[in-house]
């Protein structure tokens, strides 16, 4: 079991490795969402799928990937698209990439009658894309077993999401509480990528 402290400590270790120039690939670190993401994982079972973006260290740990195995993958440069079939974790570095894939996995689950569910994590900018709207609509209307977890840090890289779209509120904010959407806001201490120090390779 992970605590907020152990999650933060893992990311701080990775930050130190990155700032020391030992990871020759991008890393996207979490901070500030420890309590809500731990709460989400209380309902996620071993047979459930977890689909993530380029920022997925916490999901991997909470789904049961051993920390040293995860760190090895990160050190080898694969932080941006971490995949662990044994734990049913799939991540993609493409904005919105996993969202329609979640729909397909869920359709597959429904067709076979397996007792499993898909938990698809995405940021608030991804949740405003066309592919997210299509995927949520399709899954809702066909009763597919997906929970969408929207993590809102207010920006995409450095772009303010609401300002860029001209929004006063996000579409899901009017629907909460929702049977298929979990959403929370958080503020990170890390930049979009890296750990805050320029690294010269």
């Amino acid at each position, binding site marked *: 079991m992970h605590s907020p402290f152990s999650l933060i400590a893992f990311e701080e270790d990775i930050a130190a490795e990155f700032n020391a120039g030992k990871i020759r690939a991008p890393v996207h670190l979490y901070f500030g969402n420890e309590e809500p993401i731990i709460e989400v994982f209380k309902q996620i079972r071993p047979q459930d799928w977890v689909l993530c973006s380029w920022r997925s260290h916490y999901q991997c740990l909470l789904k049961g990937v051993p920390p040293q195995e995860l760190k090895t*993958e990160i050190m080898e440069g*694969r932080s941006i*698209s971490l*995949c*662990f*079939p044994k734990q049913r974790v*799939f991540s*993609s570095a*493409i904005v919105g*990439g996993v*969202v*329609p*894939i*979640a*729909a*397909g*996995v*869920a*359709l*597959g*689950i429904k*067709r*076979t009658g397996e007792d499993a569910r898909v938990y698809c994590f995405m940021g608030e900018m991804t949740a405003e894309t066309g*592919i997210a709207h*299509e*995927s949520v609509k*399709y899954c809702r209307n066909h009763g597919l077993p997906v929970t969408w977890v929207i993590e809102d840090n207010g920006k995409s890289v450095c772009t303010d999401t609401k300002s860029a779209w001209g929004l006063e509120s996000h579409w899901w904010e009017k629907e909460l509480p929702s049977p298929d959407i979990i959403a929370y806001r958080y503020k990170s201490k890390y930049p979009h990528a890296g750990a805050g120090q320029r690294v010269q390779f």
Partner: protein
Amino acid sequence: MKYFDELKRSMEWLAEDPRTVFIGQAVEVPGTAMSNTVKDIPLARRVELPVAEELQMGMTVGLALQGHVPISIYPRWNFLLLAVNQLVSHLDKLDIMSNGGYRPKAIIRTGIGSERPLHPQHQHIGDFTEAFRLMCSTIEVIRLDEPEQVFPAYEKALLREDGRSTLLVEWGDFYSEK
């Protein structure tokens, strides 16, 4: 056998494998020339999708991850262009990005739009076979130029165990001409 008959035979052979599922627009209902190649496959094996090409390709990837072998139908290359993101950055890269962990298999059908007897004009007749061969690292792109190529190509696509998906390109005009 003729080109269309080989295609129909291939689809019905694919349907004998319980892992396969046919998805796309006009797979449960008439609508395109390809519809006729799957019309005798049980409805339970066909999933009619809305017009949402990228969603369809993402669902293709997801179904494959879940252990199915999707046959994902895009009647023309020009329509498949709308799904390139999922094709090139996910279906083609799954084996690589997961360090060999995920090796799902999908079968993508597309076509070069027919020009006879009606010419649909230039947004419907693209042949991007060579371009996609250059864009893809693992997906095998096979253009079906002759009837005798058809069944062996689909047979290979289903039976292959090398972790690669297959994109098969059909000629719309050959449905009635070869």
